[in-house]
């Protein structure tokens, strides 16, 4: 489990997300394909093993991983690229990049497994 290493920044990060109208989303949300096709996603698996995603950038602002879980600890986190065409999902890329949580490489395995539960698989 990984804790937020920058808790002092959380209030501003949550305020940025609210201002931009960003809310963490589950992968089975009907709007997932919209944000996936826009570009890079940030993802996190919370301590209940729930997967949350949001765009990396909105209106030129980079959102931060703690927004996904209201600053709570995570089991895994990173970034991903997913493209969806005619309902077919293409997992393009996944990593464990997060300066706020600094998860290790096992995070990628957890991410792969959790995305796969929603039919998103990565090469």
């Amino acid at each position: 489990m990984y804790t937020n290493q920058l808790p002092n920044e959380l209030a501003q990060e949550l305020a940025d997300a609210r201002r931009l109208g960003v809310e963490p989303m589950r992968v089975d949300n009907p709007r997932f394909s919209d944000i996936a096709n826009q570009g890079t996603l940030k993802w996190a698996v919370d301590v209940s093993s729930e997967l949350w995603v949001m765009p990396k950038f909105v209106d030129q602002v980079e959102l931060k991983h703690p927004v996904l879980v209201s600053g709570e600890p995570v089991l895994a986190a990173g970034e991903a690229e997913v493209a969806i065409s005619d309902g077919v999902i293409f997992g393009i890329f996944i990593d464990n990049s997060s300066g706020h949580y600094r998860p290790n490489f096992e995070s990628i395995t957890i991410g792969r497994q959790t995305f796969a539960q929603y039919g998103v698989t990565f090469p």
Partner: protein
Amino acid sequence: MSAFMNVSAISDLSHSDLPQIQHWLDAVLQSELSAPPDFNWLGLAEMFTTRVTANPSRTGLQWAYLAVRVYDHLLETTDAQESLGNSQMMVRAYMINHLGSVAKDPVLDSNILMHWFFQQLTISFADAVQQLDEWPKRRIEWIRNLRQIKNRLSILMPLYQKGQLTTTDGELSKWFSIYSKLP
């Protein structure tokens, strides 16, 4: 300011003000001082970007200078080039969008963005157009290439739409013409 802050973890910096952090960062990046072992450079860059976008002004610009320097350091020392490069260039694009382009400025020079976009291209425009046709049937490496181009165009888009990014040969406009078809 002479004495350096005692920094053992990134949380020590998050309590500090801009001059203190700048003083510490100058010393570390100029090898006058050592960063703590296994220091969280990515966390520091992310902290700076939050402060940039919280202050889209001259104060934000000072944070942007620090963010760009930390991303430069990360790009020299780590593998996640695509993610780091995009984050760094988005900081530049954000500040240019708010303050305008300034030639030779390490953050505000829009030519840096243009150079970065074209330098990162690994496929020709003709190949990209060819691969776009039925891209779901292409190999994953091609789809990844096309997505990377889309992500970089997304960073340039607000400036392009405001006419702040142009090329005399129309090369950039060609890439934007296929933006909506990219995966």
